[in-house]
């Protein structure tokens, strides 16, 4: 015979279980739009039943609340984060290349190739009318336009490099910050879970932080057997339970590439251990800022290519110009067309002789003296003079440079009759030779007797335009074409990979939402379900109450 009050207990357990389930449903609905929230569910099971004697089976004792669980697929999290790192990397690369494209600005009506076309046109007019001051003015103005154009391109690229450095620094700080926050959450989660159960909502917060970190860098994470949470970055533990190791930013002592922007930073672990990003936004930014070659070419590559372009262009123009004669012919022989930092030809020659090597600023007082290759550095030059010597030196230019590792990236310039190993002309520093402020000194004539009517030197200058031997990529136009084609192919690839990654990441995220997201219809259904069950349990209590009332108040009162 069961106890009279047992029915009340069963109904009560139903009341509380359904009430709690309603609470969980309500919590789910409230957090339906919370970022990173995973839906929760109340797990229940039937109370252990009483066994009825005599093989009558068991009699249920109501419901027992087991745990509030969250529904989340950790494998999807893992996949999402792996792909997210790649997305971060290519997203950064793609947006940098977009900006480089804007700086190179091809095709447009104000691009470098247009400016060069203008310049060559002016030279053609000078060839036809060398005695005319108007054509001389035009040549000077157009030459200035060429120098300003490359100055600006180079400056803007360096600005972009500085901006990238800032962005890189912010990303590193962000990563440190998030690691720190995770340590704090680790403490709360660990302490909460000591008593058993799971700290669902706080774990969600940690997962959001992990998602965010995964875009920045390639992270590995795991929870050990003792519920301690760890994050490793490139094999080094960044977060270990209650501790975190930070990445440290230090100013770079020596420029990585010759013509980098100033004040770039280096990243390493605070323990002194080195760190190179292997994936994520950090890697994208790092490579875009530092790479001068390789698959992922960065800003330094484009700065270097533009320097290389303008150096050869200026050197060839100077060679031709210095062989010509201006109207005031005695003074003109040997004048350059382009120098750096507004120098006169003589100042620039002195500069090359005394400070031309390893000079970052282009100022006197820095750098080392240019190294003379006139003498016996190159076998057999001693018997040659003039054009023969020049031919020999030009033919062996790369041999001379490559035989001496310290001359890598340098060039050989003709200064009067000497050939000097010096720095390449930098696009940020190039200017027209100040001598040419006197328009009469523009050397349009090939002979001293030819002034003013001889314009053949101007014609020789225009022929740079079609000189297929000028660059390893051909003529100036070919060079620009190759540069923008490289840029275009890289930009296109970055954009394509980025978009693919985005689709992949979105797809995975959708899958995650499919599992962990709150469905309002479902919650509504549950709400009704739990509400009805709650009402029914209450009704059971009523029934029990009536039964007890019957037993207590009305039973055994017959005949009274």
């Amino acid at each position, binding site marked *: 015979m069961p106890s009279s009050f047992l029915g009340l207990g069963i109904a009560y357990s139903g009341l509380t279980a359904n009430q709690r389930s309603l609470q969980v449903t309500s919590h789910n609905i409230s957090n339906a739009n919370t970022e990173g929230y995973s839906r929760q569910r109340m797990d229940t099971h039937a109370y252990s039943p009483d066994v009825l004697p005599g093989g009558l089976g068991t009699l249920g004792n109501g419901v027992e609340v087991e745990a509030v669980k969250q529904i989340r697929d950790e494998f999807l999290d893992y996949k999402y984060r792996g792909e997210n790192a790649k997305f971060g990397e290519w997203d950064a690369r793609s947006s940098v290349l977009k900006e480089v494209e804007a700086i190179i600005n091809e095709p447009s009506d104000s691009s470098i190739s247009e400016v060069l076309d203008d310049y060559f046109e002016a030279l053609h007019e000078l060839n036809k009318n060398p005695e005319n001051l108007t054509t001389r003015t035009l040549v000077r103005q157009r030459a200035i336009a060429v120098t300003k154009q490359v100055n600006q391109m180079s400056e803007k690229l360096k600005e972009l490099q500085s901006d990238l450095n800032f962005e890189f620094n912010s990303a590193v700080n962000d990563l440190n910050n998030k690691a720190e926050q995770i340590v704090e959450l680790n403490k709360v989660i660990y302490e909460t879970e000591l008593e058993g159960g799971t700290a669902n909502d706080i774990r969600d917060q940690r997962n959001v932080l992990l998602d965010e970190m995964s875009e920045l860098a390639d992270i590995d994470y795991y929870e050990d057997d003792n519920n301690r949470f760890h994050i490793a970055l490139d094999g080094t533990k960044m977060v270990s339970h209650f501790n975190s190791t930070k990445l440290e930013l230090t100013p770079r002592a020596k420029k990585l590439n010759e013509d980098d922007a100033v004040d770039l930073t280096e990243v390493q672990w605070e323990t002194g251990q080195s760190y190179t990003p292997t994936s994520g936004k950090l890697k994208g930014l790092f490579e875009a800022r530092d790479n001068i070659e390789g698959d992922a070419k960065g800003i330094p590559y484009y700065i270097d290519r533009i320097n290389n372009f303008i150096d050869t262009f200026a050197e060839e123009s100077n060679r031709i110009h210095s062989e010509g004669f201006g109207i005031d012919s005695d003074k003109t022989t040997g004048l350059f067309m382009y120098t750096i930092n507004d120098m006169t030809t003589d100042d620039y020659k002195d500069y090359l002789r005394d400070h031309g090597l390893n000079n970052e600023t282009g100022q006197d007082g820095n750098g080392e003296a240019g190294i003379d290759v006139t003498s016996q550095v*190159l076998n057999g030059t001693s018997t040659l003079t003039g054009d023969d010597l020049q031919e020999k030196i030009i033919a062996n230019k790369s*041999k001379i440079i490559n035989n001496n590792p310290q001359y890598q990236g340098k060039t050989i310039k003709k200064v009067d009759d000497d050939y000097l190993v010096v720095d390449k002309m930098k696009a940020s520093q190039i200017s027209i030779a100040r001598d040419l402020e006197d328009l009469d000194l523009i050397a349009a004539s090939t002979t001293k007797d030819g002034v003013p009517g001889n314009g053949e030197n101007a*014609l020789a200058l225009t022929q740079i335009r079609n000189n297929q031997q000028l660059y390893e990529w051909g003529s100036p136009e070919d060079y620009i074409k190759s540069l923008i084609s490289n840029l275009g192919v890289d930009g296109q690839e970055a954009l394509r990979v980025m978009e693919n990654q985005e689709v992949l990441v979105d797809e995975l995220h959708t899958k995650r939402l499919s599992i962990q997201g709150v469905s309002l219809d479902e919650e509504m259904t549950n709400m009704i379900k739990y509400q009805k069950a709650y009402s029914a349990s209450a009704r059971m209590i009523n029934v029990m109450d009536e039964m007890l009332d019957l037993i207590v108040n009305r039973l055994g009162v017959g005949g009274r």
Partner: protein
Amino acid sequence: MRVTNQMMSRNLLRNLNRNMQDMQDYQDQLSTGKKVQDPSDGPVAVTKIVKYKSDIRALEQYDKNAKDALSFTETSELAIADITDALDRARELAVQGANGTNSEEETKAIAKEIKQLKNHIIGEANKTFAGKYIFSGFHTDEKLLNDDGTYNFDVTNVDTDQTPQTTYEVGVGEDIKVSTNGLDLFGLVEKDTETKQILENMSVGKAKGNDLEHSYAKLSDIDTSNYTGNFSVDVGGTTFDQNHDAEYSTKSELISHLETIEDGSGNQLSESANVYFNTENELIIESKNDGEEVENITHDGLLASGSVNYQTEQTATNAKVGPDFDEKVLTDTMIQNSNEEIKFKFSYNGVEKEVALDLSQFGAGDNLSDAFTENGTSPTNSLQEKIDNAFSGVTDYATGDIIVNVENDGTNDSLSFSGKPESGEPSTLDVKVIKGNKSQLMQDLDDFITALESNDQDGMGKFISDADKHLDNLNSERSIIGAKTNRMELILSRIEDDNINVTQLLSNAQDVDMSEAIMNLKNRENVYRAALSTGAKTIQPSLIDFLR
């Protein structure tokens, strides 16, 4: 698959965004009229566009050049046609004058008309095109002929040897010489036979002395494995052989080892010599100072099999012009028979002086050396002395810095000039000889006028043949111009064709097909609208709307 509310809103947003992006792309295309905006939109298309645009700019310039060339040659042609007409008239008058039946009045009247014709020809000779004198060669800012028919500038050997012609470029590597040289049209009255020979037989031109070079030693086939570290070298008479205890296994170690070898008084080798490897991997020890010899190297096993090779380069040399013995023949007789003045222009290290030598002062018994080199001897002034006088007072010029040499190779005498090095620096010397300044055509006209005025029948008759010669010459110049004009017209039409082709190509590569782009934009717009309307339907309702 379970579908949640967040999923739906995210997907909707993403798809809307994607549609917007597509619409933006087409909008960009339509608003700029271009298929590609950035290199990454289509690297191949963009490089093509850049190339075509540049090609068009070049073609436009070539078109302009060809048109200018055409105008230039047309102007020249008109002028020459005018000169031909005038000369035809002069010839007619000569025929008329030479028939022997004219009175003095009549020949004088003819002379008057010839003077007018001469002035007319001078006017045409000084014709300008866009402010330039077209027949003046490179002297475009000076008229060709003076009013008396002489050339406005001295005609030097440079003007006659290299015909100055303005060149325009009308295609890649395709040049056209547009100008006609006045000298070719009007000729030059030449000196007497002997003077002419002297002028032709002299070597004149430009020269530059050689650079200073230093003494050096070359050590080939370096191998440090058997080298004991004992090294000794003399530089400028000082022996460097002390203090050899540095490392020397690599190239740079070997260099620093050798650089730090000292002489007896603690001076290092690096102060007196440069030590380096050349591109053939030979070790070079080169003295730093002029005239210091590098010699007496002992190296104690440093070379595997090679040798030490001592060389000394020349110091600065004279800048020398001429001679070429094979062709240049000068004789004393030429000096003795010549009766004219020869003018030279000397430009020594950039300073130019004109020197005139009157050959008529030399006569029987004088020889080449008297005229050119001997100072202060008979009769008074030689060329050498005149040069020294002309240059006296020029900074850095000492008497005899420009040297006039008369040399004999056994059979022939020849004349050449050299400039001494200027304080160790190489000198430059440029010698020009002035060939005259009187036009042959003008001279013939002047002779004709004189003949008319003195009623000299032979003189008048001579002009007929002179005029025929000049007319032939003018006609051949005109035919050259005619050929150029034809070529220009061909080139112009070719440029036009090219321009049309390249413009077409550019348009294909760059321009948007408007109707296609608009159609695509409309398509996207429809998709976008559909997405919006379905979104509005699916996002809105939920079970809540249906619960009481």
